[in-house]
Structure formats: structure tokens, C-alpha cells
């Protein structure tokens, strides 16, 4: 399935082959079906958005992608291989990082420590080495600190590096969370409503960061977002969901002209 060579975006970026493919996914909670027979893919280097009205199953979908929920039916292929049901931390080790709709930072730690937790999957020095802070542990600490510092620099949060996360305002917390996800140098980055609750200025900043991340590191990004304008500006391809079903899939302009989408989503938001 990974034989095609992708496509060229409207702004001229080259998008690669399929990174992740969701095939006929169905997810139920007890008697409730949250996702019904959904198929879509995410390609190397693209920004892929999942949109839909409230309760459409977007978050559940993202949780399936991130491996937090295991669907009852359907298959997930990651980088060409079928993914067995994995523990969440095993998924993280495959190179999938994410942010959360309601910020899930570690409130008792500083910004730097939070970002450093993004590197935990790469740190594996032994107990003795850590206990003595010598040898591999110290080397690892410094090497990973360097990587984190680059992310901190990239997201322009240098001045709060040592501030406890609990003291930060909402917008900055969102940025720190993005930093934590980026620190793991993910192959696929999932953003769950990265701009929820932000003012226009903060949204602009965040959009710029998302584009910069995609541009600078070539990171593949899948995101859920409410703000249609933002989604249309940011993303290369959009999946539209409604009541757990996929009702549209394509470039922003295609989706915008799709009658089913207009009815379900835009119609709802404009009545």
C-alpha cells in the first residue's frame, strides 16, 4: 500500500507516502458506538486535520491513532506494518507524540523538566549510573538537555525555562505541552485542539509554531481543531466526521465545497 509517492501541496511542498493508515475502524464504549467504520490515512510530512461538530468522535479517533483506545474492529497500519494492540507507552516509543485537549502537563515540575520528560523514551542509563550521576546517566542528561533546549529555543519559551508549570498562564502551558511532544522528535505528532481556549493572537502564534514545526523538522502532524478558519489555513488534507462517521475527506477547498460537510458541519454552525 505504500507504493505511491504522495502528492504536491497547494503551496508546493512535497508530501511523501502513507505513514499511518486507519482501515475500517469501529470503536464502541459499552453500547455506544463512538466511531463507525472509518478509513483514512496520514502521509509523511503533511498536516492532516480531523474536524467535525461536537461529539463527532474526533477525540476518540485521535485516541485510536495514539493507541490509547483499541478499536473493536478495523486495522491500524503504522509505517507499513499492522499495529497490534499496544500499551500507550509502547506507542510513544514507536515515535508518536501528542498533546491533549485539556492540558496534561506535570504541574509539579518546571518547564524544563516537563520538556525533558519528552525525552524519557530515549534515556536508558542504568540505575547505578543514575544514582551516582556519573558516566552514561550524566552524558544522557546533557545530550538530551541539548535537544530540549533547542526545542525551547524554537518555541521561544527560554524565559520561563525554570518556572514551575503551575505558575504559567494557559497559552504558555499549551506551548510547553507542544514542546514536550516535540522533544521526543516524533515521527507523527498528534495535536488535540491545540488552539482551544486561546485568543486570536495566541492562535496566530500557535499556528505559526505548528507550521514552523512541520516546515523545519518535516514532522507529520495530525490535529483536531474546532476553528474552521484555522484548520483551512493550516492543513493539507482534512477528514470531516459527524456522528462517528466520515462524511468528507480531501483538501481544504474540496472539503469546503462538499455538500455533506456543509450540511453537517457548516450548516450546524450557521443556523
Amino acid at each position, binding site marked *: 500500500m505504500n507504493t505511491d509517492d504522495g502528492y504536491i501541496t497547494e503551496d508546493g511542498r512535497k508530501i511523501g507516502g502513507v505513514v499511518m493508515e486507519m482501515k475500517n475502524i469501529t470503536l464502541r*464504549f459499552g453500547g455506544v458506538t463512538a466511531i463507525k467504520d472509518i478509513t483514512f490515512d496520514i502521509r509523511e510530512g503533511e498536516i492532516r486535520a480531523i474536524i467535525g461538530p461536537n461529539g463527532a468522535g474526533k477525540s476518540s479517533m485521535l*485516541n485510536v491513532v495514539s493507541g*490509547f483506545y483499541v478499536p473493536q474492529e478495523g486495522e491500524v497500519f503504522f509505517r507499513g506494518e499492522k499495529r497490534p494492540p499496544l500499551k500507550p507507552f509502547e506507542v510513544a516509543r514507536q515515535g508518536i507524540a501528542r498533546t*491533549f*485537549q485539556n492540558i*496534561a502537563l506535570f504541574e509539579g515540575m518546571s518547564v524544563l523538566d516537563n520538556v525533558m520528560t519528552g525525552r524519557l523514551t530515549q534515556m536508558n542509563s542504568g540505575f547505578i549510573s543514575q544514582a551516582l550521576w556519573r558516566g552514561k546517566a550524566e552524558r544522557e542528561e546533557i545530550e538530551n538537555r541539548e535537544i530540549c533546549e533547542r526545542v525551547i529555543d524554537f518555541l521561544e519559551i527560554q524565559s520561563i525555562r525554570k518556572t514551575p508549570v503551575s505558575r504559567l498562564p494557559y497559552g504558555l502551558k499549551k506551548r510547553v505541552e507542544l514542546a514536550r511532544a516535540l522533544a521526543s522528535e516524533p515521527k507523527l505528532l498528534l495535536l488535540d485542539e491545540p488552539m482551544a481556549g486561546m485568543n486570536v493572537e495566541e492562535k496566530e502564534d500557535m499556528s505559526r509554531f505548528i507550521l514552523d514545526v512541520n516546515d523545519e523538522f518535516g514532522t507529520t502532524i495530525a490535529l483536531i481543531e474546532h476553528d474552521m478558519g484555522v484548520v483551512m489555513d493550516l492543513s493539507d488534507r482534512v477528514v470531516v466526521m459527524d456522528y462517528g462517521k466520515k462524511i468528507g475527506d480531501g483538501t481544504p477547498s474540496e472539503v469546503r465545497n462538499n455538500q455533506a460537510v456543509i450540511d453537517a458541519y457548516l450548516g450546524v454552525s450557521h443556523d
Partner: protein
Amino acid sequence: MPDQLIYAMEVFFNGLMAGVLYALVALGFVLIYKASGIFNYAQGVMALFAAMTLVGVMEGQVPFAHLINAVLGTKVHHFGWHLPAFVGIITTVIVMVILAWLVQRIIFKHLVGQEPIILFMATIGLAYFMEGLGDMMWGSEIKKLDVGLPQGINLWIDETTYNIFDYGFFIDNLDIVATIIAVTLVASLVIFAQYTKEGRAMRAVADDHQAALSVGVSLNFIWIMVWSVAGFVALVAGIMWGTKSGVQFSLSLIALKALPVLMLGGFTSIPGAIVGGLIIGVGEKLFEFLIGPLIGGATENWFAYVLALLLLVFRPQGLFGEKIIERV
């Protein structure tokens, strides 16, 4: 070994009786937990404190006598009166209500919205404080408590069983009375919760704080009420255990026994507390009877905990709890 089986039956019945008392203490936990999310470690000490107060009031002890004597050099001990049980009980209930009010007012009002584990640790602090306070007020020596409950072997059961099994079961009258009282108490609590305005408010709070607030239920009032009821339940438990084995520090440890009961039954379920109490009561008596001798005895000390621990590993929500769905 029919003999063994008969002994086991006797143990079983005794276990049931003990289990009722565990359930009674556990009930106090459930009440407070449901209404306020506080896991009240101090429940056992409340029982001890209630029993001590009851004895102290009935015997006419001067509160803080030791302290007064130490500070002022006086030698006061007793007022010199003996009060009937019902006066003592009423006085003690009043004391427990005041205590409930103070606890809510001074401690938990300031801890609203904290994590459960913080609340839990606060109740440990409360337990320590009340233990010190009880000893300070009434002295730490073992006291006899007699409110007129029947005690001793129930001859009728002894005789009947002797006739049937050729072996007379030893079942204490007190245990029977305790069971009856406990059952009555549980029943009336259920009725209270179902049919009175306060009870409905209490259940509303337990279901959803915010919603209850929005329909005009005073959380503060409910919490004080719940602590008061829990205090009353503690008093009843205190009377039972106190009558049985004297009012002393070990009484507060019984409360610890109620913890595994809760873990089995779930923290929010009144039937769960009762069933859990019975399981633990019977289980630990039977285990001690059957396995105890092989491994050194005194297994009641830990049996309940290990049982609860094992259960939780396989069913983290307890027997009656609902499955927890984690969300992100």
C-alpha cells in the same frame, strides 16, 4: 470430621456477628465518603472518643482532670455523680455533633477541592489529634462501659445447638443485640436517605456537588450533618466494642479493620459495606480457625488486608464499584 465442621459453624456465626460490627464502622466511612469524598481515617478514633466521652459523662469524670491537676496542682477527678445511660448517650451525641461542626468548620472547609489523598492524610492528622484529645480529656486507662446491654453466653442457643449437634454453640448475647441494633441502624439510615428531605439532599450532594449546589442545597450543612451522623454511628460502634472489650486504644484499631471491608465492598456502596463486613468477619474467623494454628495464629491481624489486597489486584473497583473508564 463432623466436629470440625460444627466448630466451623460456630466460628462462622461468631464471624457474622463480628462482621456486623465491622460493617457498622464501615458505614460511617461510606456516609462521609459519599457526601464529601473524604476517606475518614479518623472514624475509628471517633468511635473511641465517643465511647470515652460516654463513659466519662456517665461516671461524672472531670474533663481534662489530669491537665488541670498538672497545671494548677489541684486534685480533681470526679464530679461525684453517676448518670443513667440515656443521659450519657444524649450528651455524647451532642458532643459528637459539636465535634462534627468543628471538624467541618476548622478543617475541611479549608480543604475543599483538594486531592483525595490530601484529605485522607488530613483525617490521619485528625485521628492523631482526637486520640491525644481523648486521652487528655478522659485519661488513657482502660475503662469499663456498661449501658445495660445484655452480655454473656446465650443459653437458649447453647441449649438448642447442644440438642441438635451435641455441642453447644457459644454465642454472646451482646453480639446478638449488636446485630439487631446494627441492622436497625442501617435500615433507618436507608430510610433516612430515601425518604427525608435532608437525606435526599445528602444523596444529591453525593451524586454531583455542582448540581446540588445549583438547586440550593447547602453543602456546608450537608457535610456537618454527615459528620454528625457518622459521629453517631461511631458512638454506636463504640458502645458495642466498648461493652465487649472495654474502652481502650485498641478500639480505634478496629476502625482500621473497616478499611479492608470498604475495599471489598467499595467506598460508595452501603450494601457493599455490609456484605464486605460480613465477608471479612466470617473470613478472618474461619481462616484463623482453619489455617491459623498451622502458621502461628493471630492471623486476624492481617487477614482482612491481604484478602482485600488480593481482591483489588484483580478487581480494582472492589466488589460493588463501577468499572473506571480512563479518559484523556
